[in-house]
């Protein structure tokens, strides 16, 4: 199967660097799959689950937060603020973050604060979801 070069960089580490067969990104209206020799594109990535298939056919899942992916000349760079493997996720912390965010959403707050709480709720939910289905596969 054809492969392309993929680099997933989060703000605190290089999450993945190497060849990849298939990359699935979470975007605003669903999921976005990238195969080898994809059209040149820049895609806005949303909070959600990222899946990538290594040349060996193994799937790697990660919970990612907002960022973007750039596909140019069969090279893909994904730049996101955070990327975590399911086993790295601290479920307790994510659960606490979810509760905190929900609590904050109940209070009256400015639009900016509302968006921030909403975003942190989305991040927490993604983490929880990713940590639950560890054996993701197509």
């Amino acid at each position: 199967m054809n492969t392309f070069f993929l680099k997933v960089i989060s703000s605190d580490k290089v999450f993945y660097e190497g060849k990849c067969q298939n990359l699935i990104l979470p975007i605003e209206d669903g999921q976005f799959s990238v195969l080898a020799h994809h059209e040149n594109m820049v895609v806005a990535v949303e909070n959600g689950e990222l899946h990538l298939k290594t040349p060996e056919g193994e799937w790697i899942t990660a919970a990612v937060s907002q960022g973007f992916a750039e596909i140019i000349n069969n090279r893909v760079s994904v730049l996101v603020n955070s990327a975590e493997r399911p086993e790295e996720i601290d479920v307790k912390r994510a659960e606490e973050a979810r509760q905190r965010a929900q609590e904050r959403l109940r209070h009256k707050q400015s639009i900016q604060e509302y968006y921030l709480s909403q975003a942190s709720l989305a991040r927490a939910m993604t983490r929880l979801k990713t940590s639950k289905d560890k054996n993701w596969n197509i």
Partner: protein
Amino acid sequence: MANARELKERMASIQETKKITNAMYLISSSKMKQAKKKLADTEPFFYAMQAEITRILRHVPDMHSHFFDRRERIPAEDRKIGCIVITADKGLAGAYNHNVLKMAEELIRQPGKHKMFVLGEVGRHYFSKREDELDSEFKYTVQDPNLYRARVIAAKMVELFEAGEVDDVYIIYTRMINALQAETQKIKLLPLQRINFASDKMAAMAGVYREAVTLYPSAHKVMDSIVPNYLIGIIYGCLVESYCSEQNSRMQAMQNATDSATDMLNELNITYNRVRQADITQELTEVIGGANAQKRK
């Protein structure tokens, strides 16, 4: 010459101070190690972000995003200029704070209405008497930079920019060149400047064929997602760089202090020995003198 007891006291007090500075040196060197690790972790992201933005802008030349709006109609005197200033939470870090504040002062002297968003106690204290320039609600610590803080700061800046509360946003931070050198720098965050991203190399490539890039779902959507993220990334990077430089310069300052304390102690020790010797000699002469006088009787 001071007497022996006074010298002894002085040496004891210097010894105490030396202990403190040495402890501070150790603390900041351990913090420095953590900060350096963080810096090394975040550097790929920091540079990749800048490189990617440059690339995207090169491939998508005609982009109309409000983040590029330079608001040229507003004359220089009326421009509202926001500036994030990253200082330390405490002093004793050599010229670190001084350099940052000097650069902030330089910016203030330029025409326009300035608003300072100061991080760190030292900077806040410095600007506290000038309430019209300091945003007093902007209270964040610089200890242990994390993404959450960068996110909140970036969100605030974007909001202010979109609301027209500020027309330009700068950030003043300290970049670590190597273990010995740090440099205070000023970056313009908003509006995005195309020149900023297009380096000299890019200019040479002007004639090169540019492939078209599709932006999905839409150019606006992508820009609206990329720019705040870019800001978060840059602000986080700046926070980490500054934190690292701060610990570094504190480490150096404390090492210098410890070194000069050692020098002072050495000097005082020599003086003390001389004084002691002089005292003994004097006493001896007195005793001998006394004995001689007794003999002559």
